[in-house]
């Protein structure tokens, strides 16, 4: 929730009459350490992307995935030309993309803002579960 807020994923607005909000859901996960003890509890808010309709809520979807062949080609080049290979990981990558389409979501359970119960969240950033999430 903190990362969602600090990322400014959404802001509250009134729902325009023609739009339908999509639902959302908390997915709770227990992360175990290899020896079986509890490492941490993970909560993830997902949008119900299956309620989105093509050409209304999203236009194209894809994820940036390299062919495994290209990775092998680059590794073999790294050997031939003495390159250094480093690795990085983008944290909460899915929450980083800017959304181009207008999407409204119901307020997440347990985090409904008092006095604004009828309002919905307008998504500004991408979120897990949306159809267009991986492409960002």
């Amino acid at each position, binding site marked *: 929730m903190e990362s969602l807020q600090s990322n400014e994923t959404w802001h509250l607005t009134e729902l325009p009459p023609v739009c339908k909000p999509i639902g959302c859901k908390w997915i709770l996960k227990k992360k175990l350490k290899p020896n079986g003890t509890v490492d941490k509890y993970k909560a993830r808010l997902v949008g119900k992307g299956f309620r989105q309709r093509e050409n209304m809520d999203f236009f194209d979807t894809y994820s940036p995935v390299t062919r495994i062949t290209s990775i092998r080609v680059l590794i073999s080049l790294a050997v031939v030309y003495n390159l250094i290979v480093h*690795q990085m990981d*983008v*944290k909460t990558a899915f929450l980083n993309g800017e959304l181009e389409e207008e999407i409204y979501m119901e307020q997440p359970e347990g985090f409904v803002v008092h006095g604004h119960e009828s309002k919905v969240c307008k998504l500004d950033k991408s979120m897990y579960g949306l159809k267009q999430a991986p492409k960002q």
Partner: protein
Amino acid sequence: MISNEFKVNERDKCIYYKYDKNICTIICLYVDDLLIFGSNIPAINFVKSLSSNNFDIKDLGEADVILGIKITRSDKGIFLGQSHYVENILRKSNYFDCKPASTPYDPSVKLFKNTGDGVTQIEYASIIGSLRYATDCTRSDIAYVVGLLCRFTSRPSKEHCHAIERVMRYLKGTMTLGLHYKKYPAVLEGYNDADWNTLSDDSKATSGYIFSIAGGAVSWKSKKQTILSQSTMESEMIALATASEEASWLRSLLVEIPLWEKPLPAVLIHCDITAAITKIKNRYYNGKRRHIRRKHNMIRECISNGAIRFDFVRTNENLADPLTKGLNREKVRETSNRMRLMPIAH
């Protein structure tokens, strides 16, 4: 994200590169994982600071594991291995304590479609899935048999399960195998093969190709052909068309990588049927079958724009052989070695 003078590789849009005063940096993107290749440390640090300005980034230092593949460096080169992944498959499917076998497939056993009831379908499918991943990442030696067994996933019979057991026993004996990349002169070359005379349900041939850079295998495939061929030459032609396509893709990928020596020579593809080579050298295709003529035209086009050329190689020395049929013990070991698929401490 990459507005800072990085260019996109047109062949694979997830590769970005930059070449500046002999210093080359290449970024390879896999959803949220980034691999950075650089000539020196400052170049890599530059990329890191660039991306950490925009994103919340975790720096993992020297690449260690990517997509479940372990990267090990030595003074001779880089080793890509999946021994822990293979071990996991074996443990999960209770084959860990089986007796090792020396070949992945027994060619004397012919597999046919199951006409009776399927057995342990879900288990079969999940093993096939895991094997497929191992095959696509590092294990080119089991590509043929995994491709073959994939065809029976919808309704596996006892024989198919035995064949899977054989693959597992082979994996058990060869768990530590992985790909070695060494510092040989950078040459891209390929082998192509088709196996026409297989006894199968629909008598379609299998085509296979393998490409290597500086001796280490980078791209391979074993695939049942989608159209029916009437002779060895025809099936070889179909296989060559697939291989040429891959060759020209690889070539254009390399063209856009600034380090690779220019001009890029045509990719040499070795194949073991002279008839097919002669046919391809001939401008006219006099066969009646239109879909083969299409393949012929495609290969001719690749040749005429200088992307590929062909060479004859004896079947015995054809590296794509294990991708189209089951081989005996010595051949399996020999071809794996030539693909540089070897145990880690080699």
